[in-house]
């Protein structure tokens, strides 16, 4: 089941995403103080930020819920929003930087999530979209 290290609910505003990321960052650093964990924690926070940004920008929910859970093999970051079911694309790829329209200015979020997290799961339960990101981090 794991230990809930952080649980927050906030209005869907980007400023609150930054606050949630900083709160999660503090807790992650306390939970995994060893220097080797830092790059992995930063990758989890990048993925978590993109998932929270998506919730703020696209969910239409009045509230964004997050949970940071410590489990034996690492950390789980979960983002929950009420609303219509979100089905992620089957293949998530980075935008083409060499396309005819030149450099893309968006469309990187889902690809960053899937690159930075070790596993990404999208569920829909009780009227809520639940994005679960897992990062495996050794305690040693």
């Amino acid at each position: 089941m794991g230990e809930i290290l952080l649980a927050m609910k906030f209005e869907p505003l980007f400023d609150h995403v930054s606050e949630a990321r900083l709160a999660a960052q503090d807790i992650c650093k306390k939970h995994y103080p060893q220097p080797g964990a830092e790059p992995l924690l930063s990758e989890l926070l990048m993925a978590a930020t993109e998932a929270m940004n998506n919730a703020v920008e696209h969910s239409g929910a009045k509230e964004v819920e997050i949970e940071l859970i410590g489990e034996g093999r690492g950390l789980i970051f979960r983002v929950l929003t009420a609303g219509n079911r979100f089905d992620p694309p089957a293949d998530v790829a980075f935008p083409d930087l060499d396309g005819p329209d030149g450099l893309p200015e968006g469309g990187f979020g889902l690809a960053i999530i899937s690159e930075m997290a070790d596993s990404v799961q999208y569920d829909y339960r009780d009227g809520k979209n639940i994005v679960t990101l897992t990062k495996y981090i050794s305690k040693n």
Partner: protein
Amino acid sequence: MEIKIGMDGDFVIAELSGDLVAGTAEQFKEQMSKLMEKNFLNVVLELSKVTFMDSSGLGSCMAAHKAFNEKKGILVCTRPSETVAKVFRVTRADQKLNMAANRLEAVLFLQNAVLSGRQA
């Protein structure tokens, strides 16, 4: 996020500090637009004090790069922290944007580009 604007010879040095993220990307874009409006078209973007960048921040760098290019200017990004460099790396943006290891290298890049009359 804070943006400090200075000059190094003919070139603008824009030093960013704090987070370049969804909540601050618009502020960055506005600042870059103001530089373009004033015809400051060769800019070094110092990123060493940017503590975090998300995909919106990356998108704003892409947008600024394109906008300067369209006006025959050049934007050079320099000294991103490891966290920020990782975003550039995994998205391959570092292969498309002008990247320099430090301010001196960025200024030399701009000087060479201006002397040879080319656009990045």
